[in-house]
């Protein structure tokens, strides 16, 4: 297992290099002179030249590539052109908020999706089965940004249950550690902030969870159907075990394996969905950060965000593979 993990980590290196190379090429391909963007639209020719030298843009491309790799390896991305703040700090702050939203959505999708899938599978062919699977198909077909708009209209404007956006009520101070607002409230024992951040998180998290929830429900159903036909379940029933025990302890445990993989693989789409959800709910996060950076041609921010997100995604995929190997005793990795 350890050897497998090490091998996977080593194999990740060329992919990481590839990601950085792609980001570098993308940045070089963006039309317009980055030196002008760096110096500002109204800068004089001399100022633009100074900016070009200061950021090493007058160097030959291979040297620029090397310094690009160095800044990536040391996580030193410099200052944002728009806010003039260090990017590493901003990124950490926004990444925390985005991850918290994504993980909350993932949790909701599992808590709802798995039981729904199990119920559909154990009631195969019934109205309940058809009904839930039609709902799941509708869930998969709903754009997350529209679900967000409908959610705000119904639950915030009409019913007044949730705030219409933001991440924390103004006037509440929260000391930041991870920049996940709920997590930080828990870590610092700040109950007012916990209540407020949960209140702000719930609706966007439910909205973001619709597609993964539908996917989990569908997968759980098909995975359970496959397992429910197996002989060992007949044996378990023949032993006189209750149906509930058979379904949960024997069937679901085995049906979970493909679900874990699928859930891990969903993370990339979850992040994309999180970007759009943040835009709809006006929550700070990586998605809004990068969209604003593109509008403002904030090159260093685009570079940093794209790279960090891609790397995070690769690492998450690795973790999923390792978890997968750990929970499935049939898999032996040498």
């Amino acid at each position, binding site marked *: 297992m350890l050897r497998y993990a090490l091998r996977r980590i080593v194999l990740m290196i*060329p*992919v990481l290099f*590839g*990601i950085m190379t*792609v*980001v570098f090429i*993308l940045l070089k*391909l*963006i*039309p317009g002179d980055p030196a002008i963007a760096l110096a500002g639209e109204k800068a004089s020719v001399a100022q633009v030249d100074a900016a070009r030298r200061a950021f090493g843009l007058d160097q030959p491309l291979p040297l620029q590539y090397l310094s690009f790799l160095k800044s990536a390896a040391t996580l030193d991305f410099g200052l944002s052109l728009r806010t003039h703040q260090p990017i590493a700090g901003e990124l950490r702050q926004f990444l925390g908020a985005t991850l918290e939203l994504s993980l909350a959505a993932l949790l909701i999708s599992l808590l709802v999706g798995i039981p729904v899938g199990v119920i559909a599978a154990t009631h195969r062919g019934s109205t309940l089965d058809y009904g839930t699977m039609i709902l799941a*198909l*509708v869930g*998969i*077909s*709903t*754009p*997350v*940004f*529209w679900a967000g*708009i*409908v959610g*705000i*209209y119904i639950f915030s*404007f009409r019913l007044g249950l949730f705030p219409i956006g933001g991440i924390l009520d103004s006037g509440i101070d929260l000391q930041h550690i991870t920049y996940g607002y709920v997590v930080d409230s828990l870590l610092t024992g700040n109950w007012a902030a916990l209540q407020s951040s949960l209140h702000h998180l719930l609706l966007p998290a439910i909205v973001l969870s619709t597609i993964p929830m*539908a*996917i989990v429900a*569908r*997968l759980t159903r*098909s995975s359970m159907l496959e397992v429910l036909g197996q002989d060992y379940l007949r044996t378990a029933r023949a032993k006189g075990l209750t149906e509930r025990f058979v379904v949960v302890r024997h069937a679901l445990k085995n049906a979970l394996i*493909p679900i874990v993989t*699928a859930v891990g*693989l*969903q*993370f*990339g*789409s979850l*992040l*994309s969905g999180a*970007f*759009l959800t943040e*835009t*709809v709910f006006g929550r700070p996060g990586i*998605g809004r950060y*990068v*969209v604003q950076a*593109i*509008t403002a041609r904030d090159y260093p921010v*685009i570079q940093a*965000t*794209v790279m960090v*997100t*891609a790397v995070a*995604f*690769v690492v998450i*995929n690795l973790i999923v593979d390792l978890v997968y190997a750990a929970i499935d005793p049939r898999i032996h990795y040498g």
Partner: protein
Amino acid sequence: MARELDAAPGLARAVAEPAVGALTAPQSTRSLWRDAARRLARDKGAMAGLIVVALLIVVAIAAPHITPYPPNDQSFRIKLKPPSAAHWFGTDEFGRDIFSRVLVGTRVALWVGIVPVAVALVAGVAAGLVAGYYGGTIDSITMRVIDIILAFPWLLLAIGIMAILGPGINNVVIAVAIVYIPAFARIVRGSVLSIKEKEYVEAARAAGLPDPQIMTRHVLANAWAPIIVLATLSIGQAIIYAAGLSFIGLGTQPPDADWGVMLSSGREYLRQAPWLGGFPGLAILAAVLAFNLFGDGLRDALDPRLR
């Protein structure tokens, strides 16, 4: 893999292997397709999806002739009017008729749904076929490139490409196509790897047929089922992706009608005029649902064991 699942939940694995197995004997191909068509025709959901898709195509073609009002005509006298007999879906912030704009928006939606998937299908099938058939270095390089593309969440990749190409609906088509190439390449490669070991491929090789002919006539001809299913299910997803890009301002530029852009302006008038975003959203949902229903039915029809 993420985007394959994203496009078609569970599809990559579920479809590739069993369907290929079911399709590997060339002599049974014709009856298999006929059986599948018969099963598809009996699937009520798939047929409902197909009818809606056909309707969308008719609307897209006829849109300029059937809209009750010119879709870009502004009239501030009637701005933000709720749905009525004169304006079925109400009017927007410029007094434009939303029903007319939704009808015209069908053209954009089908364009951004079908064209990128078609482009990705051609490119992905070519890449997957060559990689899987030749194996070795070509395969390793292709698969690493695909791993790298897959390492970017789709929206980020699309945003990066849009940053280079600039906003506009045709650039959305290019961006979404690039996002989809890996899914097709992987599913084709997977099928090719198993098919190329079959005796009939070996026989074709022994008979001295040139590689391109073996690849298209013998290998690819038996790998179509999962590709078609993936394509159908991807169209719905591509419509959502493109609407998402338009929603954040990178797609269709005003004043042209696009469901994603209409949703985006609908968000600003949500409190006083919920119909602005409500109807374009329902239109996206209906279109995507139709393609997904049909795609699901197609998958079940091509491989009844998955039902």
